[in-house]
Structure formats: structure tokens, C-alpha cells
């Protein structure tokens, strides 16, 4: 039964691009951050750092430099790479594990939000340089992806229709290529 709940959570999560301004409880935000801590990380290095933004003025400024942020979410979690950690472990900056780490953390947070009955959506279409200035990020932090968290607004969703219907079978090959 438990496994069914987890699988359903994965299948029913959709990006939400219209949110209400109802605040998100602090415990729920912390639960999402704790879930991200348990996401798999290459070499168990954990180079990601998370910045939680709830202040309305800061959120507004971020949205103004983020053309791909359609939602006005009450909580933004910015996933950053901390390059000091990367350097400390002599990881080449081009190592793709660094990008994959962002992906595992992001998906874990999206699913945690879904499990808590919250709406969420990732955003990468923003100006990195502008975000660095607005958040006064340390030089060793690069802003990699926003996770918007909030409550779904009951209006018709703006979003992209699938390019074509796909099932997992279309995405899968078994064994060897002939």
C-alpha cells in the first residue's frame, strides 16, 4: 500500500504555474529541505546549498528577472552549487555529476511538496547574473534552479501541451540494440 502511495505521488505530480498567495507553513518548508538532504549525490559530496526566499519584495524582484517564472509563489527555494565544496574535493567543474545532483535534489523537493499537498514548479529561465545581485550571493555560489512552492490556484493552467503523447514504453529499450 505504501509503495502505491509513493508511485501515485510520482505519477500525479505536475508543474503548477498559477499559485495563490496563501503562505506555506515553516514545518512544511523544512520537511521539503530535509527530503532534499536525502537525495542521492555523486560521491556523496553534497555540493548543493539551498536558499529559502519568503520575503515578498525579494520574491517580486526575482520574478522580474525570471522570464520563465509564471507563478507568484509564496516560497522560492534556490538550489545553488557551492564551488568551494567542488574545489575542495578536486572535482572538475565540468563533471556532469554536478548537474545531476541538482536534478536529484529538485525532483526530491517537487515530490516532497506533492506529498505534503503543496503545488510546485522548477524554473531555470532566469538571469543568473541578476539573481546573484538581488540575493547578494557569495562568489562561490552559483544559482542553478528555483523550486517554486505554494498552493495551486483554481484557474485554468497555463502550460505546455505535450509535444506528443508518450508512454514509458516509448522511452525504454530492453537489453541490447540489435
Amino acid at each position: 500500500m505504501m509503495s502505491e502511495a509513493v508511485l501515485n505521488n510520482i505519477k500525479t505530480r505536475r508543474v503548477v504555474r498559477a499559485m495563490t498567495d496563501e503562505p506555506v507553513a515553516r514545518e512544511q518548508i523544512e520537511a521539503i529541505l530535509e527530503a532534499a538532504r536525502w537525495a542521492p549525490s555523486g560521491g556523496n559530496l553534497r555540493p548543493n546549498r539551498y536558499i529559502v526566499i519568503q520575503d515578498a519584495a525579494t520574491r517580486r524582484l526575482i520574478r522580474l528577472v525570471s522570464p520563465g517564472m509564471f507563478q507568484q509563489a509564496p516560497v522560492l527555494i534556490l538550489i545553488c552549487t557551492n564551488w568551494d565544496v567542488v574545489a575542495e574535493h578536486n572535482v572538475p567543474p565540468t563533471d556532469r555529476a554536478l548537474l545531476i545532483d541538482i536534478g536529484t535534489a529538485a525532483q526530491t523537493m517537487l515530490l516532497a511538496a506533492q506529498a505534503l499537498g503543496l503545488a510546485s514548479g522548477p524554473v531555470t529561465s532566469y538571469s543568473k547574473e541578476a539573481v546573484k545581485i538581488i540575493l547578494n550571493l557569495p562568489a562561490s555560489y552559483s544559482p542553478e534552479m528555483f523550486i517554486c512552492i505554494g498552493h495551486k490556484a483554481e484557474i485554468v493552467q497555463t502550460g505546455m501541451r505535450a509535444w506528443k503523447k508518450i508512454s514509458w514504453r516509448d522511452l525504454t529499450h530492453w537489453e541490447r540494440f540489435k
Partner: protein
Amino acid sequence: MIDWAICAVKQAEPHETVSGGQSTLMSENWVLKEEEAVELLALLITSARIQMEEPAHYGPLRLLTATERLSAMIVERASEKSRAFLQENVDRIPDMHMAMSDGEAYIAALDERCRAVAACLLRHSCPPEEE
């Protein structure tokens, strides 16, 4: 075919345009506040930058997002002639994004807006009715 019937709408006083120094008949109403203009400017500059790393079809999406935001900023202060256009055409842009994966439908929807904006320009630039 141009619908000259819309030229029957009475116009506001003419003023000089910045671009060609030519006289046009567009209303002199201020419809955008400085804060709004700067917000729009931020959207346009950051869109230009992120477009360098994103798929080409995101370009129209960003321009339409800017169109939507500009429309929301000015719709209440716009003249009747513009407001009808904004309400009938720009308010429906979010539905259009859904059709992005259907190239032909997307182009048809964009063409429809282009015809509508041309008609709106004509409404603004037709000479005043003879007394």
C-alpha cells in the same frame, strides 16, 4: 481587406512620434508608469540573455509574456480603441501557449493577433471624421 469602416471612429489630437518625426493621430494618454516600464525592461533584457541558451521556439514565448504583462499594465488606462483589442486578443495569450506544440495552430493564432493589432493601429491612425 482593410476595414475602412473602423476609420469612422473619432480620434484624439495628433502628436509627433519619436521615431520618424511624423505626425500621427495616436492619443497622448500616458498609460505606463515608470515602475511598470522598468519591470517590462527587466523582462526584455533578461529574456534576451536567457534566449542565448534556450531553444529558438522560446523566443516567441518570451515576447508574448512581455506582451501579456504590458497589456495588464496598460489595459485600465488605455483608450476604448486599444482596450477592446487588449481584452479580446491579449487576455487570451495564455491559452495560446498551450498550442505551442502544434506549430500550425500556433502560427494561425499569432496571425490572428497580427491582424487584430493592425486593425487596432488603423483605428488609432484614421483621420478624424469630417464635421
